[in-house]
């Protein structure tokens, strides 16, 4: 019966992709509007595709090198022979999701603007359903990849030790997450650098130097700015959440295989549970997407309510149906595991609300930053940093409480039952991400609405249309901010599950060594000579045998390196934005200087050259931080061994999560403090306070759109690299 239930996963995947195709066809059937609207959309499309092509070229080289490395490791007996291929498929599917998502988004902007000519509801429908294409493609491809690998590995891996086969299958599948992670890292870091270089460049010369409003076609960087919204917020966010989604399902499956080892059919059920929850959540996301509609002349609150209705409906239904799934599977402690799912969903919802509280101009923290603008830019920076730092307390405590509750409910309130408890944490992450189809749709909707506003502006559509696209855009800003909080929270929970899965991967690595050499000796001197002995080791045994405790300097050094990685990574990406923006500023200045007739609107600026500069800058700048993120766990493992890697992952996760929340919230609150002042507070637009707030917003741009989001990937990628390299780490380490 359990085997039959598995088929829900590929069916859900095909349905998700089918509906994505349906929404895409519906979108393409919409009219793109006037020739001018089409022309602008085409500029953005060409720029976005040029960026993606360039990014894929760089990523292909990196993938080729890593694949060769994994093949070599497999040849040397340090890794499963499937890993290199799993790695490639993970990267391929993640890249494909980004490609489809961005393609749709760039087709959607002009159509949304044109639909807004008819009505607000029509504009919302076109923009949201185009965002839904991204959401459904991400979950559809992730489930497809998971289902295909599960089928293939089940058929190919021999049944040696009962229970061991599923452990091998799930830990092998986990490695395709590294492909997704690597792709996501390049998408997030590259996209983040691109979008902010274009944005800052467009603003500094366009708005500040030439006094040109935003989205004015005379600004040479305006198309690059619009392209940036797509590559950063659509492709980057999509790849990030693809990885979290696949990572949480795979890590939980691996933890389930380990927790229920030697328990017969139960083990398969525990492996299938996260896949089924994700699959049913996908189907419910489709239901939720159809529930999103609003009435004409809706207020901002009603628009937000319309989106919320879809998300809430999906979440409510998954709460009910996940209980049914667990009940049908017949897993013991149904209520406890169901509790973990509910905890995961609540944790995601709560983190979104907390993000909204700290970044929305409707609440005290952001208004406090706006008030501090009255005393100049220095106090804006101080209060923004202070608020951002303080705000970390709430999501961190939410994750702490959520994790503990998920652990306790799954382990029947027995703190010593680590296996079940960790499985519960994984299940909570899956619960949080189960309705990603619709959650991501609301995230991807933001840049589509933003681009639609830009298209309406540049095409000179009427005031009524602009009012509607402005309302849609403003809603997109809110969903983008909460989406960032959700992405960070889910990354933290996924990384926790991956951390636990790392131990399972070590076990497989040791089994391989025992099979090849006949013996394996732990750092504490314990020698094992049979595969059965290794498979009997518990998680606590591993901690003990590898000396993973706080008095071990290798753990402490690893923690230092992990924490340092988070900060160094931020520093590298922030400086990258500065350098890339500088090139953009110089190019825009050059065009104003050398191309006659731009300001008169008689000559079209050279948009393509700005797109090319941002593309080149992003590709050049993303390489070093990305490669460092991959190299750090490998080198730490080779020097400090498993203990060092555990330290690295915990240090990286703890520091990276907190830093990511800080950067996203500080950046978001600076942005909205400026908007609050522009709405008429503290002297309004043009006042000294406004000037100070603009400084805060400019500082916050790379915080919230480049470094902060990239940290999500860093913490997951370091875990994934450690998992994939586990075989090498157990075989070699200097200390």
């Amino acid at each position: 019966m359990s085997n039959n239930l598995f088929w829900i996963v590929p069916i859900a995947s095909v349905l998700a992709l089918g509906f994505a195709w349906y929404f895409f066809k519906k979108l393409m059937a919409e009219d793109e509007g006037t020739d001018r609207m089409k022309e602008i959309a085409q500029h953005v499309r060409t720029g976005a595709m040029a960026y993606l092509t360039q990014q894929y070229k760089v990523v292909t080289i990196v993938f080729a090198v890593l694949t060769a490395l994994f093949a070599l490791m497999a040849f040397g007996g340090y890794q499963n022979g499937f890993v290199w291929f799993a790695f490639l498929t993970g990267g391929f599917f993640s890249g494909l999701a980004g490609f489809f998502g961005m393609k749709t988004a760039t087709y959607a902007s002009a159509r949304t603007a044109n639909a807004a000519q008819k009505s607000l509801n029509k504009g919302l429908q076109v923009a949201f359903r185009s965002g839904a294409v991204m959401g459904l493609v991400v979950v559809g491809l992730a489930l497809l990849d998971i289902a295909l690998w599960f089928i293939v590995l089940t058929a190919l891996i021999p049944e040696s030790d009962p229970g061991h086969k599923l452990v091998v299958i799930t830990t092998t599948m986990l490695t395709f997450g590294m492909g997704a992670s690597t792709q996501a890292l390049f998408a997030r870091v590259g996209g983040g650098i691109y979008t902010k270089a274009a944005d800052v460049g467009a603003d500094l010369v366009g708005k500040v130097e030439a006094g040109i409003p935003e989205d004015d076609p005379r600004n040479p960087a305006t198309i690059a700015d619009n392209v940036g919204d797509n590559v950063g917020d659509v492709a980057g966010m999509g790849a990030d959440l693809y990885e979290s989604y696949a990572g949480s399902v795979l890590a939980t499956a691996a933890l389930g295989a380990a927790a229920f080892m030697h328990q017969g059919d139960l083990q398969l059920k525990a492996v299938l549970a996260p896949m089924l929850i994700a699959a049913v959540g996908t189907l419910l996301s489709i239901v939720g997407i159809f529930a999103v509609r609003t009435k004409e002349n809706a207020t901002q609150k009603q628009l937000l309510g319309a989106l919320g209705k879809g998300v809430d409906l999906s979440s409510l239904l998954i709460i009910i149906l996940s209980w049914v799934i667990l009940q049908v599977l017949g897993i013991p402690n149904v209520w406890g595991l169901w509790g973990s799912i509910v905890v995961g969903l609540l944790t995601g919802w709560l983190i979104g609300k907390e993000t909204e509280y700290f970044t929305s101009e409707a609440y005290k923290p952001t208004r406090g930053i706006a008030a501090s603008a009255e005393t100049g830019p220095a106090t804006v920076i101080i209060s923004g940093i202070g608020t951002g730092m303080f705000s970390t307390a709430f999501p961190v405590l939410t994750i702490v409480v959520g994790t503990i509750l998920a652990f306790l409910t799954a382990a029947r309130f027995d703190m010593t039952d680590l296996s079940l408890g960790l499985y519960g944490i994984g299940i909570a992450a899956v619960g949080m991400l189960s309705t990603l189809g619709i959650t991501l749709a609301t995230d991807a909707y933001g840049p589509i609405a933003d681009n639609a506003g830009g298209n309406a502006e540049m095409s000179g559509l009427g005031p009524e249309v602009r009012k509607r696209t402005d309302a849609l855009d403003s809603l997109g800003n809110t969903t983008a901010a909460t989406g960032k909080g959700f992405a960070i929270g889910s990354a933290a929970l996924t990384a926790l599950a991956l951390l636990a899965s790392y131990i399972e991967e070590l076990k497989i690595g040791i089994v391989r060594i025992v099979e090849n050499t006949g013996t394996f000796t732990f750092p504490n001197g314990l020698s094992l000579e049979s595969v059965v002995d290794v498979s009997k080791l518990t998680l606590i045994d591993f901690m003990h045998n590898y000396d993973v405790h706080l008095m071990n300097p290798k753990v402490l050094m690893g923690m230092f390196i992990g924490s340092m990685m988070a900060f160094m990574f931020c520093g590298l990406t922030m400086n990258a934005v500065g350098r890339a923006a500088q090139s953009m500023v110089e190019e825009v200045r050059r065009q104003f200087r050398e191309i006659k007739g731009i300001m008169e609107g008689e000559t079209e600026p050279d948009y393509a050259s700005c797109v090319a500069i941002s593309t080149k800058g992003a590709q050049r700048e993303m390489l070093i931080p990305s490669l460092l993120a991959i190299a750090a766990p490998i080198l730490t493992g080779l020097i400090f061994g498993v203990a060092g890697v555990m330290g690295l992952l915990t240090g990286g996760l703890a520091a990276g999560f907190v830093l990511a929340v800080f950067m996203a919230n500080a950046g978001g609150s600076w942005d909205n403090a400026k908007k609050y002042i522009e709405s008429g507070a503290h002297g309004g637009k043009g006042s000294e306070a406004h000037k100070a707030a603009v400084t805060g917003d400019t500082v916050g741009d790379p915080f919230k759109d480049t470094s902060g989001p990239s940290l999500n990937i860093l913490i997951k990628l370091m875990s994934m690299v450690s998992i994939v390299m586990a075989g090498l780490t157990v075989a070699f380490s200097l200390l």
Partner: protein
Amino acid sequence: MKRYLYLSLTPESLIASMLPPLEFGKYLAVGTKKRTHGEAIFFQVDPTFKSDHFPFKDVDERCQPHPDGSPKRSLYLSVYRVVEHVPNDALQNLFLVTDDGRVLELQKQKYINTDSSLLHLYQELGPVMPQIASSLDPLTFCRFVTDRKNPISVPRLIFVELVLEELANNPTDGSAENLPYANIDHLRDCLIDLQQNTEKRTKTVLRCFHRDILYRTIKNGFFVGDQKAFNFYPFPSNMELEEKHHNWWRSALTVGF
């Protein structure tokens, strides 16, 4: 090519040009090499206007197309004491230009005072440029400042009234939230002084205005007057700006620091 005559307020000057008003405004704001930008305010002057004070004979001689056939963009005829020598009836439409060269045209209308505010804030634009708080309505203020019997006066005045929001009637406790003026406390003090000391009718808030006007702070419009004449150029409402002059308004709201 047709020649035009303009009275510019940035700075006060009389200019002959072959550019029509919209192009002239763009030229004033962004120049020809596009390396400059800046707000501009100017009036179109009746082309038949003549005065011995200005060297009009130069116009025929020097305001000629360039050798490449392009129009002569500007021929400065005078750069000071211009306002006092151009009578009200010679002033035609007023043009407001944003930093990036968008131009809004305002037409003269008869002034009817419908404003019951107790206090006002005036930005003088020519011939001198102080910012003045006053208890006088625009017409009375104009007559007061151009009254040559006063120890301090000017022969003719161009000015604009700026918004005071709640401070206009309640300088002590009124909210100044959306007022972007520097040194709000000093402005409040000036207004309180005017409210309490009824003998006093004007107070200088700023001795010399030193930055562009934020168009969003214009209350009702621009005024040009002396002891006899009084021209009023009403500024459109926000709704009208949004609907009919969207590009200009968006540009006017863009603040470059």
